[in-house]
């Protein structure tokens, strides 16, 4: 941090005072909130049985407020589109992965994938679900990328794009399908609710995992670039 | 939702047709390529002639007591109203006939100059706006077309595209846009007070409670200021002389038909059909208006004396002459009113003659200044003859139209007990003579200089017929209007007819 002149110091002082006033006000407002507030918990528990899942958070995310989640998948896709639209960086310095990292990744990747699968499945009745699973999957992807792995040429074209939109696509498809079948938008009739939700979550997990990894990668992977030994290695 | 579907019979559509007869050709012309000369001329003339026919029809209809009114829903509680009443007929007939003439003139004047499609497009829009102003049945409609007129004339003023022209255009806008803003404020305020803006004979404000009279006076000032800009009342006249940079047909239109007349006509409307002359008088706003007009009359004439540029001299003469109308309106009394109204027509016809002639001199011999006019009468006798008639008319010499209006103004002033006005009229007539007679003297009696700035030859004729016919026609018109002043359908008779409507029996 460079030396501050008096003007800047004064400005910061004023700002500090101002913000502490703001903080005080907000704190006061918070403290004035009622001590007991059931919020919507009772309603959620009442409707949990007809939601198709037994984990309240998942029920809210995928069923009660599923519309939010749908739009949120769109946000994720948007982030990727935006990043890709910014073009590719001129050159990025790659540090050659050491033996340790390489070894570690070989051991961990399968584990990660397994964990994410478990999280996805458990989300129906315990903490967990698509986002947790997706982020673990993403971790695996990041690890791979760090280890120098690059997606195969065959993959970075249409297949990759399909995987990226899969979550949103599935969501929209279900939303429209139930409507065509005579129910409301995103209404999950009880007998199939669980299945539909799991379907959506599975697709979402995959998309989220790949999207986050791709975001970490930072630009659209060039087709037919730095393939070679690592590619095959990555593909098993 | 109800969008006012009324039974649209023929009478209700006629005003629309009158608008369309110049609007549609104008819009088509915009999209014509430059070289489609014949099509453009056809469109222009067809529109102008159709309009004359329609207006003639309406004139007769109104005379036998028909009602022509178009209503379109525009704002909550406010319609767009186009109505042909006696007063609008006076203005609309003038502008229609003069438009026909000016179109012919413009076609001749602008032969193979650039951007003609653009020019004639806006030219037609300009006339559409003027007709709209004439037909407006309430203040809102009036404002609408008044603003449209501003927008349509701007491109005509800057048409030449020189730096000078752009500057003139900027000045014109600065004045007119601000004027429009004042007018709009006044209108909205008035609507807030009364809940109606419908033009009605003898006004619609008289029954308002006296606590609102101060507001009404302020509104009157706002409205008159807004209208005074276009009517070039001193001190709002600054744009007019500068606008002289525009091509001659445009100046003719601006001065005789469209812009200044729209302003003057607006003043007439506001005083008679919004406030009502008696009520305006009781508010005590008419005398200041009269004084303002009087000042303008003298000021314009004095400034005209010192202009060597012919068109500028005519411009200042316009500043002075148009205020006769405002003066006649502001003098509370039927005879003065007749004088003012009839001058609306007479001034138009005479002034357009003068501008046509000025244009001819410029086009044919490249003469722009009075000092270059020595002996031009022998080179272009017909043109100068027309010019002479126009000039004498302006001075108010019998038997030309100008005499009639001044005569009635004078009588009206005495009748209204405003004797001081006589001196104004006399003084301005003297001044008119002082700045016109030297011109005529130079043209007829001075030795011709060896060679003109630029001399175009048109075979045996002194200039192109399209340039020569219009001034001759209007000069002839201003003579007949004077000689046959009391024939049926003459402006004078029509003005009498209007006056009977505006003054309580």
């Amino acid at each position, binding site marked *: 941090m460079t030396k501050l002149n008096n003007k800047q110091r004064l400005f910061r002082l004023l700002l500090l005072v101002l913000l502490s006033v703001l903080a005080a006000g907000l704190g006061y407002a918070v403290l004035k909130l009622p001590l007991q507030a059931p919020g919507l918990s009772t309603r959620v528990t009442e409707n949990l049985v007809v939601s198709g899942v037994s984990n309240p958070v998942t029920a809210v995310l995928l069923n009660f407020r599923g519309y939010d989640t749908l739009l949120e998948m769109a946000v994720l896709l948007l982030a990727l589109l935006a990043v890709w639209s910014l073009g590719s960086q001129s050159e990025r310095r790659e540090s050659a992965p050491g033996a340790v990292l390489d070894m570690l990744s070989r051991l961990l990747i399968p584990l990660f994938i397994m964990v994410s699968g478990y999280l996805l499945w458990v989300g129906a009745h315990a903490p967990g679900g698509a986002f947790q699973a997706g982020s673990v999957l993403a971790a695996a992807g990041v690890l791979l990328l760090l280890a120098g792995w690059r997606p195969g040429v065959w993959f970075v074209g249409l297949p990759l794009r399909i995987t990226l939109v899969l979550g949103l696509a599935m969501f929209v498809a279900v939303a429209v399908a139930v409507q065509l079948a005579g129910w409301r*938008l995103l209404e999950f009739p009880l007998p199939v609710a669980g299945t539909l939700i799991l379907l959506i979550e599975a697709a979402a997990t995959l998309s989220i995992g790949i999207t986050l990894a791709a975001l970490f990668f930072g630009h659209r992977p060039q087709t037919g670039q730095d393939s070679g030994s690592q590619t095959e290695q990555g593909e098993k | 939702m109800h*969008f006012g579907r009324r039974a649209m019979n023929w009478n209700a559509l006629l005003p629309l047709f009158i608008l369309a007869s110049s609007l549609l050709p104008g819009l088509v012309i915009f999209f014509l390529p430059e070289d489609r000369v014949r099509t453009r001329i056809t469109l222009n003339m067809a529109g102008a002639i159709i309009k004359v026919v329609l207006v003639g029809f309406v004139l007769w209809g109104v005379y036998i007591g028909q009602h022509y009114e178009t209503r379109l829903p525009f704002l909550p509680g406010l319609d767009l109203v186009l109505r042909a009443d006696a007063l609008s007929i006076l203005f609309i007939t003038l502008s229609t006939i003069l438009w026909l003439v000016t179109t012919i003139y413009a076609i001749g004047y602008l032969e193979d100059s650039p951007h003609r499609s653009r020019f004639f497009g806006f030219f037609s829009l300009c006339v559409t706006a003027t007709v709209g102003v004439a037909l407006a049945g309430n203040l809102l409609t009036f404002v609408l077309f008044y603003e*449209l007129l501003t927008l349509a004339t701007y491109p005509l003023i800057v048409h030449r595209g020189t730096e000078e022209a752009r500057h003139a*255009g900027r000045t014109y806008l600065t004045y007119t*846009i601000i004027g429009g803003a004042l007018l709009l404020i006044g209108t909205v305020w008035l609507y807030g007070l009364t809940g109606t803006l419908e033009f009605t004979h003898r006004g619609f404000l008289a029954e308002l409670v006296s606590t609102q009279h101060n507001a009404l006076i302020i509104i009157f000032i706002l409205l008159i200021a807004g209208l005074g800009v276009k009517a070039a009342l001193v001190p709002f006249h600054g744009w007019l002389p500068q606008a002289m940079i525009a091509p001659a047909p445009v100046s003719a239109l601006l001065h005789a038909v469209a812009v200044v007349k729209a302003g003057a006509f607006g003043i007439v409307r506001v005083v008679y059909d919004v406030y009502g002359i008696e009520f305006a008088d009781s508010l005590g706003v008419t005398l200041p208006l009269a004084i303002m007009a009087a000042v303008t009359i003298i000021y314009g004439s004095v400034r005209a004396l010192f202009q060597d540029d012919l068109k500028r001299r005519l411009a200042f003469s316009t500043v002075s002459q148009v205020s006769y109308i405002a003066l006649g309106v502001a003098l509370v009394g039927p005879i003065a009113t007749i004088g003012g109204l009839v001058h609306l027509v007479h001034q138009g016809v005479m002034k357009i003659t003068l501008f046509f002639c000025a244009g001819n001199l410029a086009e044919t011999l490249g003469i722009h200044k009075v000092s270059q006019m020595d002996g031009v009468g022998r080179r272009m006798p017909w043109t100068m003859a027309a010019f002479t008639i126009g000039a004498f008319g302006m001075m108010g010499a019998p038997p030309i139209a100008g005499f009639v209006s001044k005569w009635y103004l004078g009588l009206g002033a005495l009748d209204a007990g405003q004797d001081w006005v006589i001196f104004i009229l006399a003084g301005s007539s003297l001044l008119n003579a002082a700045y016109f007679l030297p011109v005529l003297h130079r043209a007829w009696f001075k030795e011709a200089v060896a060679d003109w700035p630029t001399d175009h030859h048109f075979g045996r004729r002194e200039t192109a017929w399209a340039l020569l016919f219009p001034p001759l026609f209007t000069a002839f018109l201003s003579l007949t209007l004077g000689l046959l002043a009391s024939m049926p359908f003459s402006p004078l008779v029509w003005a009498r007819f209007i006056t009977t409507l505006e003054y309580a029996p």
Partner: protein
Amino acid sequence: MIMLWHNISWQAMPVLLPLVGAMLCFLLPQRIKFLGLMIALAIAASVFALLLQVLDEGVLRYSVGGWGAPLGIDLYTDGLSLLMLLMTALVGLGISIYAIAYFKSDKAVHFWPLWMLLWAALNALFLSADLFNLYVTLELLGLSAVALVALAGGANALGAAMRYLFVSLLGSLFYLLGLALLYHSFATVDIALLAQRIEETPAVWAAMGLMSAGLLLKTALFPLHFWLPPAHANAPAPVSALLSALVVKASFYILLRLWLDVFPPTNSMLVQFLGLLGACAVLWGGLQALRQTRLKMLIAYSTVAQLGYLFIAFPLATGMAWKGSLYLLISHALAKSAMFLAAGNLLRFGGHDRITQLDRVAQRLPLTLAAFALAGVSIMGLPPSGGFIGKWLLLDVALRSGQWWWAVILMLGSLLAAAYIFKVIGHAFTQAEVAHEAIEVSKMMEWSAFLLALAAIVLGLVSPWPLALMDIGSPFNTALSATCTSGVAQ
């Protein structure tokens, strides 16, 4: 088919269609322009269908998933939201047609999916009745807008995009915090329910302050407008158009909903303050626009000024005033998009947008110039145009309620607008000396700009329709209107 037609509620379609469109454009880049146009038409059609549904059924409330507030999310369509949707559809269609010709395929690949997502965000925003759902749409909107700005490339655009991103995120965070306080006070984020349960607690005041501040920042109300001109001026022409025409209106729409429905009727101090800021925006924006040397900067500052008008309705706060400001909002959307598209044509044709050297360019593109001029008429508020109607209504209310100073502001704003618009148009008529190496501009680009401008004019001749539409569900006669009018009625 007819059966289907009836059991589909058209409310979700304006959101789902662009989402599908975005995915299709992303998956099939080779057919992208065709796809984009088709989807754009489909969206417009769906909005039109929604209009028909509202016209014969009145206000629509649709609970997604069948749960209903407070547990679920409701979609709500009244005259106000419908008008915003129609405006978006109209402008969006024009911009789409323009974009087909404007973007080379390398940019188009990125433009279309982003634009589709932005469109989805707008429609979702105008349809939602749920504050948290609105937060998500706000983020979707903000991020896509930022990405679109950055699409122009180059240091200026990237810098502007970065600044825009921070502003957008900051605004959303303020909104989110306020929303959190509201939820924890009343256990719902549904606008209608909040409207019933609201009380004057410290938390509510805090929420009101936070959310208003965040949304004002996104709406770029003076003095929070600093980010707008660079962002709007450095983006590609179609993007500038949709930012100025639509994006800033979205946050204003939420603000309007909150103040009309949710927040407790305030003492008129606050609304007076908002009006004051609006007035400052009108004058400051106008003066800045007048000072600019580059056309797109001028237009961007004009947006700052025009946004100010919308806030003058707050102190007037009668149904008519709201209608007036909404009318200005819509006609500004049409006119301003037309202006930016026209500017894009001039820029594409002459290779620069320095106002003093526009002469030849303007004379070679008469249709584009006409578009600019017509749009200008509406911006100046001259008759006949949508701008005039809006201004008339506001003037009328201001003078009736004796608050003549707002009328003065309105008129000054118009005069300034006239000054900076004719500053541009004046050059169009000068005989050009400077020759520009002309790049041909496609007729599609010229006509889309011209038709949008024409729409802004036509809006001034059909006012009964929009005004009648605004009454559906009567969003405007609410507590706020009531108190303020009683406050000022003399």
